């Protein structure tokens, strides 16, 4: 078994605006099972960060416990990382973000870490609109403990063990929409063409961005009876085609009138939706919830960017914190001294 990747790379590898190549965004070699969807998601994050020319040291990767939460070790090896307690990644992300608002926060979680043990924390981080990308690597089973059904497993879906799941699933997209999330998307690990632009848009979004990525567990849940296997997703997904155009770039592709919809983001970047999604109102929360529900009723899975708020106000804005990261404030800025304390106290008398 190989524990490291050879150092040689393709001699014609492109460089990004920082002069870095994809190699600079790699992490350790994966120890997940061969064919795990999570590895594809890692590669999609790597590609997105490379193409956005994000400096690796400006990213913090946060995770909980599970196969998904191991994966931050396998991409962005030069970024910050925090592998936290099971289901408690949102707390750590909140603390980190409040202390240093300058970093880009990428939370990696799984269906167990988010929908079971961590569902309480998840709901509150959605409500608070913390500025982060929250990725759920959703495979519908507990792979690390040999494939038991998870809380996102569909009713009747059966893993390798063969017993159909008896409980209603938690739909994380529906939950996030219900709780006021400002950016909600669903995608599939086997479709980087859609996943990568979604990651870019989510990183650009100011506020909480959820991408629920269906990510097949090849070892336990890629059976013909599972609703989260490669073949099932490919034959049951209705994909919205998505493009992300960064602020600085000219739009060079032209689309036929009526086949595309351009959605502007706060920094001047834009998201383009094509074909089936061209008349989809991306800013209508109610419509998004209905679309997700309607597809589900038909036995289909709707993937793409489902909802994005017009005027997202992230937690820092709500709390009206200072623009400077709190961890960069000097003691005299943080603690103005007894004279100020006295004047405050006086004001309250």
């Amino acid at each position, binding site marked *: 078994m*190989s524990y490291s*990747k*050879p150092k040689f790379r393709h001699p014609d590898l492109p460089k990004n605006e920082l002069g870095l190549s994809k190699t600079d965004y790699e992490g350790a070699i994966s120890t997940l099972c*061969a064919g795990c969807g999570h*590895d594809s998601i890692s590669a999609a994050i790597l590609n997105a960060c490379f193409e956005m020319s994000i400096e690796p040291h400006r990213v913090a990767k946060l995770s909980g416990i599970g196969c998904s939460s191991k994966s931050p070790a396998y991409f962005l090896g030069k970024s910050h990382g925090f592998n936290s307690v099971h289901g408690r990644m949102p707390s750590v992300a909140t603390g980190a973000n409040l202390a240093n608002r300058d970093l880009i926060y990428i939370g990696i979680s799984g269906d167990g870490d988010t929908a079971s043990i961590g569902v309480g924390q998840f709901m509150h981080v959605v409500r608070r609109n913390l500025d982060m990308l929250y990725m759920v690597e959703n495979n519908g089973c507990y792979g690390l403990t040999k494939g038991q059904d998870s809380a996102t497993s569909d009713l009747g879906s059966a893993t390798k063990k063969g017993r159909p799941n008896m409980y209603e699933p938690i739909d994380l997209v529906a939950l996030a929409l219900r709780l006021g999330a400002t950016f909600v998307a669903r995608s599939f690990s*086997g479709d980087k063409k859609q996943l990568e632009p979604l990651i870019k848009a989510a990183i650009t979004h100011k506020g909480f961005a959820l991408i629920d990525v269906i990510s097949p567990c090849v070892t336990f849940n890629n059976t013909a009876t599972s609703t989260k296997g*490669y073949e099932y997703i490919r034959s049951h997904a209705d994909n919205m085609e998505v493009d992300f155009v960064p602020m600085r770039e000219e739009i060079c592709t032209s689309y036929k009138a009526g086949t595309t919809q351009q959605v502007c983001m706060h920094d001047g970047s834009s998201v383009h939706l094509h074909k089936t999604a061209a008349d989809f109102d991306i800013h209508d929360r109610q419509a998004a919830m209905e679309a997700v529900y309607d597809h589900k009723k038909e036995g289909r899975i709707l993937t793409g960017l489902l909802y994005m708020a017009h005027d997202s106000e992230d937690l820092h804005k709500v709390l009206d914190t200072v623009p400077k990261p709190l961890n960069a404030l000097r003691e005299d800025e943080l603690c103005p001294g007894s004279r100020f304390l006295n004047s405050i106290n006086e004001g309250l008398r």
Partner: protein
Amino acid sequence: MKATDINNPEYFHKVVDCQYGCPAHTPVPEYIRLIAAKQYTDAYMVNWESNVFPGILGRTCDRPCEPVCRRGRVEEKPVAICRLKRVAADNKDDVTERLPKIPTRKNGKKVALIGGGPASLTVARDLMPLGYSIDLYDDQAKAGGMMRSQIPSFRLPPEVLDEEVNYILDMGVNATFNTYVDSLKSVLDKDYDAVFIGTGAPSGKNLDIPGRNEATANIHVGIEWLASVAFEHTGSIGKRVLVLGGGNTAMDCCRTAKRLGGEDVKIVVRSEFEKMKASPWEKEDAMAEYVEFLNCHVPQEFVHEEGKLVGMRFEKVEVVYDEQGRRNLVPTGEGPIYLECDDVLIAIGQDNTFPWIERDIGLEFNRRGMPVVDKVSFQSSCQRVFFGGDAAFGPENIITAVAQAQQAAISIDLFCHGKDVIQDRPGPGVTLTSQKMGVHEWSYDNQISNDGRVHVPHADKEKALSDRKVEVELGFDIELGFKEAERCLNCDAQTVFTGEKCIECDACVDICPTDCINFLMNGSEKELRQQLRAPANNRDQDLYASGKLKQTSRIMIKDENVCLHCGLCAERCPTGAWDMQKFLYNVTKAGQTCAG
């Protein structure tokens, strides 16, 4: 783009760049692995089967395998394949037991070999074990041809040469030395079933400019001079020597001159340094021995005083490319350049001459005075006569001569058995075997060494320059040989893709260190080459395409160009759609199709 037909042996053969580039198609990665495993005798025999003279070629080969080595496309330098071959030869045990047994009962066929160089010896090597009776004729005192007469001892010690030549002569070849065959007709009149001509390109080109005849005592034709040094007829040369020409013979001339008393030795050549024909390493070795290179000098006149050579005049030129892109040497107009010298060696090329072949015996010659020879069978227009080596199509190199002679031997064997030399020709022997040993384990070392090319140690320069018999390159010792062997990428461990098993999880795409693997909608090859993760601009390298895949209707496309054969795609494949399979390609030898 059509799905690649991997059942065609030439597809994977081409992926093993070194083997494909070798005229004799030596299975290079196979013997390099054996060297790494310290199985030197086995490594030697793999070579001996394929190229007949591993010890000789391990020192003197033109190495067409090295410029095409994949390693040279992912880092600075290719694997030192040639020097590894020498490691096998230097460290082998006695191989006599492993050499083919020669039947005591002959098959009744008699073959004459004209010339005793690498081509003829190869034919003997291939035909003797089949029971042929072979007569070999050569005008030198010993066998070896140009390997003995033109390659200096400091590059190829005579003991190494004798050993490998004798493996063949000891098979019972009836050799007649010191005998110049002056009539092919007289040979054909004897009862030979076939005649093989491997007489090389024995005539060094002359330079007919003013003063050539007057100063002839100190003007020598390079290969003739090298031969007279090798046979110890010549033991010294003047202090100031000019060597004309830029090929490997010129390098051998100047380095030999340095050892025979030449103090100020200059290479003077018409072309610019980069365009000189000599192999880069031979140029380096010559420069390391303080030989001066004068480029863009066109010889005009030998200057002599009272019948003795005193110098040469040259015209300085520059290289100009005209509108058609043709290269011209245009005088700079600086006026003649005069160089004093005591001796001149002319090494500007070699010619074939066949004065001994009668033109009325049904053997056709073309306008350039070369025999008409079939490129596949090496048969001449006179059915009984076959050619090989430099005698067939002009000067090349040892490994080409060996490869051609093996084909000629096949033809002779077919011909002597009344079979068609083209139609009945055997295809290559090919095997493709999975190297999987366990879940993530391969039978070859798939860890890629990051080390650069190992430098080969040289003999002390002063000692080497004082004695022409001291070998300059010392070769890798066992440790260095292992280090260099580990640099081989095992390109014969092929990435074999089975589309029916693929679930399109992208694991192979994500793990591939060199971005070779892609899944795309099918299109023309030209379009696809630009759509890959890293553009496939090396058109010499093929794309490996699958048929349409089940789930997304895309196809798998792999650019073979910089694949490291590290096996990570197969390790990360959950379904075994990728497998690493060893591709062994063997050129079929004479006797493998004709029974008896």
